[in-house]
């Protein structure tokens, strides 16, 4: 087989009519869409977050500064959103990861009906958060909900999941875990595929027990995947928003105490039409994602040799 680039002539490195127009034609639709709906709004929202006294209709503003950031950092709703989003991520990601690891290791073993089990476990992934959120709203129902019925069988008193602010976040978290498990299992199963089964075979020949093999061989080899999966989930969880609509009728919790970062952004932009603070919260959301993406890249680089 010809080595890649062997045909590369000298003129391919230079900008000539041929090396410009043909690729430009192929790239035009893609770059146009990207420029208008990703790159331009990205830059624009950052600029907007620094504009003070911005008037959405005339496009005028009184100055450049940090007042929008000052505004949101003093806004109880935004701080509430940061707190809830952090708590949500802190609960949902570890619990979903441990449960998924358990299921993935079982699905990875030699079992029958694998396809059926996979279908069951992956189903939540493809369904609308709004539609299935309504089902959870029904499951959480105080009087007739299935969850309170099961709790009553265990002798636990009925919990007012959706109308008692204390239980709003737990309700969101449980639904979030259920939602996050499918994608996590899939990512972990992909990680399992990359582990050479001969390590486990060799260990078994040497007399290692199943538990030892899991904790000493499989888990360390799975560590990079596990790290990446958790970061993908942290980024995903940081954007928690849509779930609030079916559960709480579009309110951020029954007592307006369950703001999330994206809900705050939506609220400032769409409901209150305060574009400056909305843009500032969008930039903060981006910074959160940025930090975890950099972490992801570091992990990927560090474990490249596996």
């Amino acid at each position: 087989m010809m080595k890649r680039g062997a045909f590369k002539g000298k003129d391919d490195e230079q900008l000539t009519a041929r090396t410009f127009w043909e690729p430009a034609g192929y790239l035009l639709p893609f770059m146009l869409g990207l420029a208008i709906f990703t790159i331009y709004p990205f830059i624009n929202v950052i600029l907007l977050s620094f504009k003070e006294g911005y008037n959405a209709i005339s496009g005028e503003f009184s100055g450049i500064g940090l007042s929008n950031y000052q505004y949101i950092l003093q806004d109880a709703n935004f701080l509430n959103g940061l707190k809830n989003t952090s708590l949500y991520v802190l609960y949902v990601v570890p619990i979903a990861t441990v449960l998924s690891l358990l299921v993935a290791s079982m699905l990875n073993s030699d079992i029958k009906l694998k396809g059926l089990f996979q279908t069951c476990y992956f189903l939540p992934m493809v369904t609308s958060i709004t539609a299935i959120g309504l089902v959870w709203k029904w499951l959480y129902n105080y009087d007739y909900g299935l969850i309170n019925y099961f709790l009553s069988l265990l002798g636990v008193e009925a919990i007012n999941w959706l109308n008692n602010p204390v239980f709003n976040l737990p309700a969101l978290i449980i639904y979030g875990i259920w939602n996050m498990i499918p994608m996590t299992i899939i990512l972990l199963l992909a990680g399992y595929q990359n582990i050479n089964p001969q390590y486990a075979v060799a260990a078994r020949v040497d007399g290692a027990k199943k538990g030892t093999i899991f904790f000493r061989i499989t888990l360390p080899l799975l560590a990079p995947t596990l790290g990446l999966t958790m970061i993908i989930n942290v980024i995903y969880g940081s954007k928690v928003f849509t779930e609030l609509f079916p559960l709480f009728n579009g309110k951020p919790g029954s007592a307006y105490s369950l703001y999330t970062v994206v809900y705050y952004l939506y609220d400032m932009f769409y409901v209150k039409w305060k574009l400056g603070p909305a843009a500032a919260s969008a930039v903060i959301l981006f910074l959160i994602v940025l930090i975890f993406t950099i972490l992801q890249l570091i992990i990927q680089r560090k474990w490249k040799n596996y």
Partner: protein
Amino acid sequence: MKALKKAILYLLLTIGAGIMVLPFLWMIISSLKTAAEVNTTPPTFWPENLVFENYVYAFQSAPFGTYFLNSVIVTAACVACILFTTILAAFAFSRLKFPGRDLLFSMLLSFMMIPFEMLIITNYTTIVEWGLANTLIALIIPFTCSIFYTYILRNFFLSIPDSLYYSARVDGASNWKYLWRVMIPLARPSLITVGLLDAITCWNSFLWTMIATDSQSVRTLPFGLYAFMSASGIRYERLMAAATIVVVPMILLFVCCRKSIVTGVSRGGLKG
């Protein structure tokens, strides 16, 4: 001993699977109950008599037919546009040679982490300025290209041996012909994966639909369902019927194409 272990494994897997599927089963069971039966304690686990009037009600009281059609149009258009732009861009980034190609591509990759939620403010302004607010087009054009899918397809294109290209070129095929006659047929599995992932994302899209539309005639299913809940009050048997209408197409899609979807998701999650 070994049989016991196996039994425990299956038991645990079945319990877990039961919990994951329970909301879906409960949704369908509840949608087939009468109003009186839905609100009983203890709940009945199978409807006393199957009633379908909740579905009839959903279709009559809210334009679920229109929502459904809109969802199909928007999803089909998004998938078609995404495939078109992705194929061309992935080809340029993998096969064509031009100065700065790989630099440009790695720059674009870094844009992948921009959360869509961040872009809604400006995108809404753009849509309004173009006079597209409250149209189906507004639900389509912001989603006509994706860096993530281009990345998936480019990786596949790169795995096609160069020798194929050079022999095609020697035989006189242009780049354009080579792309559509050789690469696309080879890339079918990747294209199906990209198409399915995008279809799922489009079908379930909520935030942008809520922002960009405000009349029933251009709503898609997820937001239509939410509006139905707000408008018709909480009648769970009816809500569950409506939710079933929204959820079932994606479940069917998943059951039919599980492998392609799972392959796609395992490359980096679902971009929602």
